[in-house]
């Protein structure tokens, strides 16, 4: 029986009982009227005779509810009443706790949505993602489309085994033109996921035709409704995908946007039809027919009762059979769950940021608990008499402690709800304002699911225990006699706990603020640091044809433009596939010619011959690339040269990439100085290859005139060409974006911590003054000056402030090296940051103590002493 039905049943039973008792009293009153009493007297006497009605109901309830449960219920009701009596206290506790729980809950929601949640389809646990294991000399495992089809046709362990590849681009339906993400899938893809169609049908097996691809498509319900106006007649109509006509055969079921958590897809086409959309169809089909080519994404739904291990064993055997015929070594597969966290690459990406964020927020949570603990402690003192009475009436200490903890629990749970609501709201706002294209963003990943609720409740419990148990034990410890008799003489024990908590708060704020300060300084530092080439003097000019221009047209244009630029009517112009410093990178595996051993990962940059000249990157050895893309020449940077040939002259050496049977060999003609290419803080081994046509134009001239000259040269070839220019130094701003974001996050968290610490300090000293009111009154009556009183109070604050700051400094010195590569060479022990933050903390701590001290100085001894 569910708890709710049980509770409903109990409520009905209690209503019955109340009705029954009402009837009893009425019957008695009627008897009394018969005996000659007036109606009113009879009613009153009947009630009196019945006795305590509430007690009767409560004791009847206890018959049905286990005693412990009913006493928990009492605790809760008592706690609710006691909280309702002190709304200001309750609001501040809930508010402070929510500040701690909210950010953590939001972070967890993000973590959960992007890493923990399985694919949003029916029974995701029976789906396994199939990853080929790389061989000893490979970076990635290979699984060709032909091999996939062999596995699919022979497997018994999988009910469906599907493959896919990603795509995206403009889609035109009648007059509507939208940009969407798409997927090219095997015909059984939707069967594998268990996703049905809203209207129309799924793909037929014959539509996955690798000899003559079929141009059919399935669109999402959202695309159909929001962008195409939900025409029922759309089945059989034509859309243009990158200028190629596709016939719509189905609209997928409502709410299905494919399975990625960070994006949504609105268009699906058969796997072979990729050949119709991108590039040369024959070339594409030849690649799909190569039994050794490519690495295909594959996932399958396990047949009922088959374990993942059994399915892996079967696939390994099948792969071995298949590869014997090519022939090729089989390395087997790993099968992983659909939770993104089971992918090691995804995990290692996230792990670079997550621990720092969690650490910072956990520190805030600690602060929050310390703060709330202080509040509860202070309130415990003002409740001394109540507690003492309860203890002296025979309540066990455990029972009273339980009562106090229950109150804290109620507050924490409320705070958890408030924090989660606020956190999710902030997260949504944050995502909406930072995502560039809401059309492509998946709105769903940041939902509150059972995992998020469980996490929030756990956090609330932690907050409750951490903030209430110690104060509860403390406020119930002192002997009853002392407590009932006591007025408001201070107790040193509680004072010490409070000042310790205060020092801890200051120390933690110090750590967080130093981190924030360092990150901010690092961004400023990065903007001034010299990357080793003339980044500040170069302009980057992008030239492209308007959207919708065919690939052929743009190829012809870029060739013509390249020839025009190299004809030399313009200042030296270099071309590069990517901008100078960018996180987006192409990687390639290369083997040194003589060294038949392990291959190395290099960052590949496609550039023109003049790249080094224009950017001012010195060539320390050899010459630049030949002005001919067909010469297989490369320039490597110093790091790459050292990695491959530590002892030898790299010039003339060979670098080989690709599989041994289809290897491409390059000759090293030059060595360039090391400069950062992916981020400001790292130097990585780089290989510079010749760029074909196209690319970004780079010119060492910041004047608008040079842009005009290049633009007019481009427009003389294609009048519609679109030209945009920007300083290359923007790369630095882009590269430091992450640190900038991190510094904002750190400031938000750090200031939150500072506010909490200041409020906490203020509360503690305001309370101390209150506690010592009588003592101060006596002193002033005996002639103490206001200044002396202020000094006494501030002196009490000195130790915790100094201890807190000292401990904070030590902790910060120990913790900040973690920030390492986000600092762009700024020392994690940057003195200016430490000094500035210390000053900031000292000032806020002084403000927090000075105000209560001023108030102490204004105490009127006459009033205070009369009050006793």
């Amino acid at each position, binding site marked *: 029986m569910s708890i709710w039905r049980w509770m409903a049943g109990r409520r009905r039973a209690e209503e*019955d*009982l109340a*009705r*029954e*008792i009402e*009837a*009893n009293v*009425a*019957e*008695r009153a*009627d*008897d009394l009227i018969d005996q000659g009493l007036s109606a009113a007297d009879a009613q009153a006497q009947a009630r009196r*005779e*019945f*006795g*305590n*009605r509430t*007690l*009767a*109901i409560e*004791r*009847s309830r*206890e*018959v*049905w509810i286990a*005693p412990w449960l009913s*006493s928990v219920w*009492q605790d809760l009701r*008592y706690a609710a009443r006691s909280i309702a009596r002190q709304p200001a206290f309750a609001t501040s506790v809930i508010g402070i706790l929510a500040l701690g729980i909210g950010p953590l809950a939001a972070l967890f929601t993000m973590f959960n949505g992007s890493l923990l949640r399985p694919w949003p389809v029916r029974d995701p646990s029976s789906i396994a993602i199939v990853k080929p294991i790389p061989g000893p000399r490979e970076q990635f495992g290979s699984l060709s489309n032909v091999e996939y089809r062999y596995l699919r046709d022979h497997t018994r362990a999988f009910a469906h085994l599907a493959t896919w590849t990603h795509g995206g681009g403009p889609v035109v339906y009648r007059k509507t033109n939208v940009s969407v993400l798409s997927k090219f899938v095997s015909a059984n893809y939707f069967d594998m996921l268990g996703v049905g169609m809203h209207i129309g049908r799924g793909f037929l097996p014959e539509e996955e035709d690798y000899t003559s691809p079929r141009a059919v498509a399935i669109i999402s319900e959202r695309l159909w409704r929001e962008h195409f106006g939900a025409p029922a007649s759309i089945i059989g109509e034509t859309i243009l995908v990158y200028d190629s006509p596709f016939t719509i055969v189905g609209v997928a079921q409502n709410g299905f946007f494919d399975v990625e958590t960070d994006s949504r897809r609105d268009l699906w086409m058969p796997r072979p039809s990729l050949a119709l959309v991108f590039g040369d169809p024959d070339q594409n089909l030849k690649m799909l027919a190569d039994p050794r080519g490519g690495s295909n994404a594959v996932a399958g739904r396990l047949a009922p009762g088959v374990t993942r291990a059994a399915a892996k064993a079967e696939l390994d055997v099948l792969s071995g059979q298949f590869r014997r015929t090519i022939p090729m070594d089989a390395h087997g597969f790993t099968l992983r769950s659909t939770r993104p966290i089971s992918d090691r690459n995804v995990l290692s990406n996230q792990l670079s940021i997550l621990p720092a964020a969690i650490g910072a927020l956990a520190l805030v949570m600690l602060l929050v608990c310390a703060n709330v603990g202080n509040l509860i402690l202070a309130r415990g003192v003002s409740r001394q008499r*109540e507690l003492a*009475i*309860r203890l002296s*009436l*025979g*309540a066990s200490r455990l029972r009273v402690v339980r009562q106090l903890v229950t109150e804290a629990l109620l507050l924490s749970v409320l705070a958890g709800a408030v924090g989660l609501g606020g956190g999710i709201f902030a997260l949504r706002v944050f995502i909406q304002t930072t995502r560039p294209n809401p059309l492509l963003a998946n709105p769903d990943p940041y939902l509150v699911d059972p995992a998020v609720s469980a996490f929030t409740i756990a956090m609330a419990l932690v907050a409750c225990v951490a903030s209430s148990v110690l104060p509860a034990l403390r406020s119930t410890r002192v002997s009853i006699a002392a407590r009932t008799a006591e007025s408001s003489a201070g107790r040193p024990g509680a004072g010490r706990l409070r000042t310790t908590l205060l020092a801890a708060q200051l120390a933690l704020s110090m750590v967080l603020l130093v981190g924030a300060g360092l990150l901010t300084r690092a961004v400023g530092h990065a903007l001034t640091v010299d990357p080793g080439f003339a980044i500040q003097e170069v302009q980057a000019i992008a030239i492209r044809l308007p959207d919708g221009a065919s690939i052929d047209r743009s190829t012809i244009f870029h060739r013509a433009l390249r020839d025009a630029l190299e004809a030399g009517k313009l200042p030296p112009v270099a071309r590069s596939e990517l901008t100078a410093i960018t996180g987006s990178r192409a990687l390639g595996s290369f083997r040194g010619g003589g060294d038949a051993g392990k291959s190395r990962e290099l960052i590949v940059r496609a550039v023109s011959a003049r790249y080094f000249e224009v950017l001012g990157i010195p060539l320390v050895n050899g010459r630049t690339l030949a002005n001919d893309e067909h010469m297989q020449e490369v320039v490597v940077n110093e790091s790459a040269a050292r990695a491959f040939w530590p002892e030898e002259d790299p010039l003339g050496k060979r670098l080989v990439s690709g599989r041994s049977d289809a290897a491409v060999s390059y000759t090293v003609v030059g060595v360039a100085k090391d400069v950062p290419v992916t981020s400001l803080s790292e130097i990585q081994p780089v290989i510079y290859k010749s760029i074909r046509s196209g690319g970004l134009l780079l010119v060492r001239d910041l004047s608008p005139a040079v842009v005009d000259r290049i633009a007019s040269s481009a427009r003389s070839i294609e009048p519609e060409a679109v030209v945009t220019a920007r300083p290359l130094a923007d790369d630095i701003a882009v590269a430091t974006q992450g640190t900038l974001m991190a510094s904002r996050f750190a400031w938000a968290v750090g200031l939150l911590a500072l506010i909490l610490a200041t409020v906490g300090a203020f509360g503690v000293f305001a309370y101390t003054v209150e506690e010592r009111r009588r003592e101060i009154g006596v002193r002033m009556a005996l002639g103490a000056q206001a200044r002396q009183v202020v000094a006494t109070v501030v002196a009490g604050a000195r130790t915790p402030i100094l201890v807190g700051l000292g401990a904070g400094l030590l902790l910060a010195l120990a913790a900040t090296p973690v920030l390492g590569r986000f600092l762009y060479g700024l020392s994690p022990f940057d003195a200016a940051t430490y000094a500035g933050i210390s000053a900031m903390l000292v000032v806020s701590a002084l403000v927090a103590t000075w105000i209560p001290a001023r108030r102490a100085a204004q105490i009127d001894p006459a009033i205070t002493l009369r009050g006793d």
Partner: protein
Amino acid sequence: MYMPMPPSDRSDLFPGALEMMVLQTLRRGPLHGYALAQAIKQASDELVHVEEGSLYPALQRMLKAGWLSAAWSTSARNRQVRTYKLTAAGRKQLERKVSAFERLLSGIAKVMKAQES
């Protein structure tokens, strides 16, 4: 301030006496709560006064134990009341209680006599 108390019958009766009298009274036929209290009062020549405040928890206990069953019906004064009826289990419980009570009573009587002589 409300402090929880251990559940107990606050009448001066010994434990179980109220239950026994209720079961005995209901042997003659179903009754509602007020009528039950009145019947016990009259049968004892008004020597035993049942406080309704403890009668209802006792009735709930006996309902839970399965000695009684309850149903809504109409009183002589045409009022909606809940009437209680003895079940077979209740009848058996009454027999056990009465024999135990009689043994106890005769034991007490012997002690009292022994003290007199």
